[in-house]
């Protein structure tokens, strides 16, 4: 069978998985199996293209080269894992997430992402982009709850502001004609003057950046991602955000060069996202929101690395090891972020389906109920914290090592200081990410169960635990395998030779050997006795443990100027004689800095404008006709 035929079958099967649920009612199983088949076909095609490195021309204006193959592989792997997970997950939510609705939106969503990556011309790209965005909207509002609907509306508005930025930006590059292929756009872009180039690039960055969840256009993400069913959240975070990043890389392929100012803006937004995403993740107690914020952080890091490459390019600095190191970081971090984020969304989706809450403050003690599953989640959390021996550590290690290499080579002092600033910010966000990940795991899995649901969690079916296990293996193996793989196959010898890669086998091996030594020392004692926790004589209750909220209290204190938590005690006297007898209600919330400082202000301005506009809309038909005539005259004048 030829690859093109296989590709067509893959796309058709993915589409069919949606159709199957629509036609045959309650056929979730069939739909997921069909989706798995489609993903396998696409994955095979992408793998072949990636390994051989040949260009593959596909039907319906699609072309796949190794860069596209990388992302197609990511989408295929994501949809495969999601299908396996949904096989066991969706039947648990028969009422909230009807299989018809979710599966049909899912199949369009996956096809939309394939098309975004493979499109060879602007119109196809834009249609695919819209297909992806709109089907994502239906995934977000899948349970039709008020919270989902409002989050969905927020997302819908933001994604269309993003789309209009894209249209405007591409409009500048295409010089009015939206029907050209990328080559036509590239030819146009070379004739643009610097101000137009800058404006176009900034608009496109805003469009793709808002989709990728970069601060300050990230507002929708922490509301929208958690509302979708968990396997959809996983794809939204782990796959759709990298696809948005890919969109921006596509833009970089059509522009002749990126001006210094644009690169600086991207760097700034990337670093801002890295810090803010991580900071909000530390204080969050809704586990899916925590993961969504963590996605913002990691996309910020990826964009910051991209901006560093662009900045170094624009000042004429070319040390191969640094650029290779940064590119290596971007590539491996996209893969690793995919693995651990998808794995964690799956894991906590499974947890939530069993104990019916997303609130970390109500979990606890799960490691005693599910010892093997907790090991999987521990590995994924270590990856989210970027700790050795996971591949995420290797990626972030390449990032900081490249920055230090910039400082170590003979560059102007300013460049070194920028590198130092980036290094510091990456350090801060790494520290906060460590906090968030360790908090998430230890509050939910360690200690004692805080609620009845958490104490009596039942067994998890294999389809819910296998996909996270696959992700955990992926995130560990990516660190170990990548070194030999790169040095052998992909001419990454530079990386090893110039010290831009560590031998993770050695690191992991050493740690294991030392831990084994510790294991034998631990056995030297006179046995083990199980007792109660030391309690000063008064029995402890699960409520006495630190919650996720309490655990993060010091961070909230140290960052209080940015986080701006609001605490309000409402005291209502019960009797008039004694003021001390009163009913007290404590409301406490973390304010979102950006929603207060940016979004609500814009909303206020819009409200005021619409109040003003409403005066014209007073029911007098003559006035409406006057407005229409004035508009016509104005349009004619402008057009002529």
């Amino acid at each position, binding site marked *: 069978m030829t690859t093109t035929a296989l590709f067509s079958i893959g796309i058709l099967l993915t589409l069919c998985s949606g159709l199957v649920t629509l036609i045959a009612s309650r056929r979730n199983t069939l739909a997921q199996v069909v989706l798995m088949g489609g993903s396998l076909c696409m994955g095979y095609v992408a793998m072949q293209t990636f390994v051989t490195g040949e260009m593959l021309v596909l039907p319906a204006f699609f072309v796949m080269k190794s860069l596209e193959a990388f992302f197609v592989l990511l989408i295929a792997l994501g949809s495969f894992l999601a299908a396996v997970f949904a096989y066991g997950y969706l039947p648990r939510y028969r009422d909230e997430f009807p299989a018809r609705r979710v599966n049909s939106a899912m199949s369009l969503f996956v096809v939309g992402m394939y098309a975004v990556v493979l499109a060879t011309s602007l119109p196809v790209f834009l249609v695919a982009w819209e297909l992806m965005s709109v089907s994502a909207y239906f995934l977000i509002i899948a349970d039709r709850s008020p919270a989902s609907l409002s989050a969905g509306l927020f997302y819908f508005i933001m994604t269309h502001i993003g789309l209009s930025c894209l249209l405007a930006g591409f409009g500048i590059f295409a010089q009015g004609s939206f029907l050209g292929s990328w080559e036509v756009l590239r030819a146009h872009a070379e004739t643009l003057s610097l101000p137009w180039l800058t404006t176009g690039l900034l608009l496109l960055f805003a469009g793709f950046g808002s989709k990728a969840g970069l601060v300050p256009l990230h507002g929708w993400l922490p509301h929208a991602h958690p509302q979708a069913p968990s396997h959809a959240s996983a794809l939204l975070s782990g796959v759709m955000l990298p696809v948005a990043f890919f969109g921006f890389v596509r833009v970089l392929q059509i522009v002749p060069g990126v001006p210094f100012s644009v690169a600086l803006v991207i760097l700034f937004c990337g670093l801002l996202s890295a810090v803010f995403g991580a900071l909000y993740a530390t204080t969050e107690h809704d586990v899916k929101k925590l993961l969504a914020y963590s996605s913002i952080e990691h996309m910020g890091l990826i964009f910051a690395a991209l901006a560093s490459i662009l900045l170094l390019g624009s000042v004429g600095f070319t040390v191969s090891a640094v650029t290779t190191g940064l590119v290596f970081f971007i590539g491996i971090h996209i893969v690793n972020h995919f693995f651990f984020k998808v794995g964690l969304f799956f894991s906590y989706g499974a947890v939530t389906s069993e104990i019916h809450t997303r609130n970390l403050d109500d979990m606890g*003690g799960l*490691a005693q109920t599910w*010892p093997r599953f*907790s*090991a999987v989640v521990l590995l994924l959390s*270590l990856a989210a914290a970027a*700790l*050795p021996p996971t591949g995420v550590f290797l990626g972030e290690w390449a990032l*900081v*090592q490249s920055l*230090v290499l910039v*400082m170590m080579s003979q560059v102007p*002092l300013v460049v070194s*200081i920028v590198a*130092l600033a980036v*290094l*510091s*910010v990456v*350090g*801060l966000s*790494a*520290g906060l990410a*460590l*906090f968030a990940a*360790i908090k998430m795991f*230890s*509050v939910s*899995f*360690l*200690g*004692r169960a805080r609620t009845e649901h958490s104490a009596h969690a039942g067994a998890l079916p294999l389809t819910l635990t296998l996909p996270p296990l696959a992700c955990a293996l992926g995130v560990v193996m990516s660190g170990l395998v990548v070194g030999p793989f790169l040095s052998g196959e992909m001419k990454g010898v530079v990386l090893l030779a110039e010290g831009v890669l*560590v031998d*993770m086998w050695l*690191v992991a091996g*050493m*740690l294991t*050997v*030392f831990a084994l*030594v*510790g*294991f034998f*020392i*631990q056995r*030297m*004692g*006179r046995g*083990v*006795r*199980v007792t*109660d*926790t*030391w309690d000063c004589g008064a029995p*402890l209750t699960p409520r006495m*443990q*630190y919650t996720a909220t*309490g*655990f993060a209290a*010091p*961070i909230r*204190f140290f960052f209080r100027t940015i986080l701006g938590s609001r605490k309000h005690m409402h005291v209502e006297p019960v009797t008039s004689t004694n003021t001390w007898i009163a009913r007290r209600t404590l409301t406490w919330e973390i304010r979102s800095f950006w929603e207060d400082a940016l979004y609500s202000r814009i909303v206020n301005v819009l409200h005021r404008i619409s109040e003003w506009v409403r005066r014209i809309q007073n029911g007098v038909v003559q006035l409406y006709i006057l407005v229409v005539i004035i508009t016509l005259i104005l349009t004619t004048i402008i057009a002529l």
Partner: protein
Amino acid sequence: MILAFNLVSVLLCAPLMVGCVRFFKARLQNRRGAPVYIPYLQLLSLLKKEETITRHSSWVFRVVPLVVFATALFLALGIPTVFAVVPESVGNVFVLAGVLALGSAFLVMGGMDTASTFGNMGSSREMTLATLIEPSVFVSVAALSLLTGATTLGAIAQVPVSMTTAGPILLVVLGLIYVVLLENARYPVDNPATHLELTMVHEAMLLEYSGPSLALLEYASAIKLAVLGTLPLALLLPWSVASSFENITISVMVFLFKIVVAALGIALIETAVVKMRFYRMQEYTGIAYLISVAGVIALLAL
């Protein structure tokens, strides 16, 4: 061979440093002080004891001492102490920083897996401190790279000490001392001598551990203290780290000398300085960061 010798000498000398700190501190506070070999006896007696484990803990509680111990040994292998020879990937500065964070993370999990507010409190604080110090760790590690011109600490013996480089080196070393004091839970960040909930961080997390597990954790923190405590001295006196097997007795003597000097320094700090309030730690970490940044900029401007 050299590596093994390095590791073994650190393992043998680590409890000595803890004993020295306690002894000097006692002397400075007009007490007689226990003999310096007491920590060895403590560890040995812990090894012989029965271990108690709370019923509210999981397998993670048992694994924590192993991982913490492993990270400490890793640091001992990767940071030059007696000889300036370290294995390539293990001795990379950022790998060492990552392994250090791995140790803290597991210690935190140990404190969280006890269902006791005491351990939880220590964990929350330790995690916060690890987060706040992270930028300083990154910057001072970058400073070490710039100073030695290499990405491993094996090149530490080649640090050029002269009149012009003395200033930047001093700044880097000062920043490093701030980081080291925090990472080892010493004054003014933490008080290793008390079991009072207001002051403790590190000890609170260890509270539920007993027997061999406690021995592993105590030993790990002693190793960390010996390895990281002598690192600033090695930067100031680059000749103190030998590069070959010749004059082995002198090298070992120099290492013992560094341990004693570092212990004396820590004892002096702990006698002269008051422990800072936990909610003022942003000042401490802020100063640590600024000093490290100043050190790096001074190095770059050279």
